[in-house]
């Protein structure tokens, strides 16, 4: 039953198992506003494999959020091809889970109600959704807060609710736009560890945009660094760290230091280029 939650037609159609989950070729995005033309993304080529944890780091204004929005179909590509699970992205996609920097919860619903909102809007079976919501809340440490209203929750807890909502319909791709950017440092580290653990447990494809170097390297199986004006991919790093990562040992490991040092260098020069 759970497998039917995402539209089955798209899943079966023309998506061989070895094809990339997301395939972007020659992507260009330009915005026109107030007589000015902004070249947000230029010549992006990117393939994201199923089960990959891809992080995208870059200075603000490099178009990293735009790239994520293009994958979800929330922003239209000006030129180039974007396919998700073998089907071209035209308009908002239903087979993704999206997490914004702000939790964007419904103020009038409690934690469980906010998570089940996903199921109600999609018309998923009620009993199944409820069971899955409970399991997700347990996994993200929300047990005991099922009936708490958003205003009773801290920022970190609100973002957990937002994450559960994004996972409820078992999307193939989880897209996260600086999800922990508004949290304090300690909560952010905890959320990183939990997200990594959830990814290990589920094996889903995650694309996460961040401007934190540590986050980009710690979480990723592959990290991409972007530069601004026009937004483009400068370099990509396969992260050669163990699958299961304890937080502090990972941050102190030579590989982490090597990669994050290099990423920081790139971000620094990208920022100076402005």
């Amino acid at each position, binding site marked *: 039953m759970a497998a039917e939650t995402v539209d089955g037609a798209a899943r079966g159609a023309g998506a061989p198992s070895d094809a990339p989950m997301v395939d972007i070729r020659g992507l260009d995005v330009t915005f026109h506003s107030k007589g000015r033309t902004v070249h947000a993304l230029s010549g992006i080529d990117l393939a994201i494999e199923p089960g990959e944890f891809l992080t995208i780091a870059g200075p603000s204004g490099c178009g990293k959020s735009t790239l994520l929005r293009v994958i979800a179909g929330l922003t239209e590509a000006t030129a180039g091809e974007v396919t998700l699970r073998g089907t071209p992205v035209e308009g908002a996609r239903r087979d993704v889970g999206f997490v914004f920097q702000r939790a964007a919860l419904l103020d009038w619903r409690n934690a469980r109600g906010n998570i089940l909102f996903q199921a*109600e809007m999609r018309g998923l079976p009620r009993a199944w959704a409820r069971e899955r919501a409970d399991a997700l809340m347990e996994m993200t440490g929300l047990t005991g807060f099922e009936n708490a209203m958003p*205003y009773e929750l801290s920022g970190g807890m609100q973002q957990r609710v937002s994450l559960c909502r994004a996972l409820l319909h078992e999307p193939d791709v989880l897209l996260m736009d600086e999800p922990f950017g508004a949290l304090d440092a300690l909560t952010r580290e905890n959320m990183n560890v939990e997200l990594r653990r959830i990814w290990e447990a589920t094996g889903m494809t995650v694309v996460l945009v961040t401007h934190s170097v540590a986050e980009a390297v710690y979480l990723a199986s592959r990290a991409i660094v972007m530069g601004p004006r026009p937004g483009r991919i400068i370099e990509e790093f396969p992260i050669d760290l163990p699958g299961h990562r304890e937080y502090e040992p990972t941050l102190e490991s030579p590989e982490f230091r090597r990669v994050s040092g290099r990423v920081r260098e790139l971000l620094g020069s990208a920022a100076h280029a402005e």
Partner: protein
Amino acid sequence: MTELTRQTPTLPSARLVRRARPSRRRRASRGLVAALYPAVFLALVVVAWFLVTATEMVEPYIIPSPADTWAAFTDYPDYLWEHTLVTTRETLAGFAIAALVGVLVAVLMVYSSTLEKTFYPLILFAQVIPKIAIAPLFVVWLGFGTSPKILVAVLMAFFPVVISGISGLRSVDPELLELTSTMGASPVKTFLKVRLPAALPELLSGLKVAATLAVTGAVVGEFVGANSGLGYVILQANGNIDTAMLFAALIIMSLLGVLLFAVIQVAEMFLIPWHASRRNRG
């Protein structure tokens, strides 16, 4: 496809802040304390009123004494009740029509920019026309029955409903709307589950303003041409220099407005208990 494994969190959930909700009883006692302030002030006003009239500083036909005003209530209860009912009916009908049409117009304008561009300036223009000035026209068109009074009440109450409705429906988080677009839900579902609840706090504020204006509208309609209603009572009392009766009618009118306002206030308690305006009271 993705297998969800049940697993207890490896980390203690950090920063579990939960603010306690005030208990129902505490909230109720707070409400009584809050009512005390205006009650004390009102009592002082009545005392001042009594002193002014008791010392005969002004003639009774200019300001009647509290006792005379009270006598107007007790001497003519049926008369006042009958006319109060007329004005109440007109007010409620006007308010209901204004609320329904106002919300409908707000929804149409939020969803269609063409409609908004066409009608928003016209509604604004219509709002600027003094309703009191066009009330006689309604009597010419609709006669001396209740309909011209209801129409004036509608016109008075309509504007705040539309304005608060539009701004309420627009106040929804754009990211929330983007999120619903990835859920493939119908626009109707999105409206009912996201837009409308998000609009309720502002809409209810607009309805509170509209309620008091509807009373004014009904009475203004009665001023222009009527043989019943509180506006008629005021005109009659004025003609007879019966200031006590005039005061009595004024007090009933005010109570009518306050009562309608209070009904919406109570509705807020049930409809938007989550909203900051309700949580931060007291």
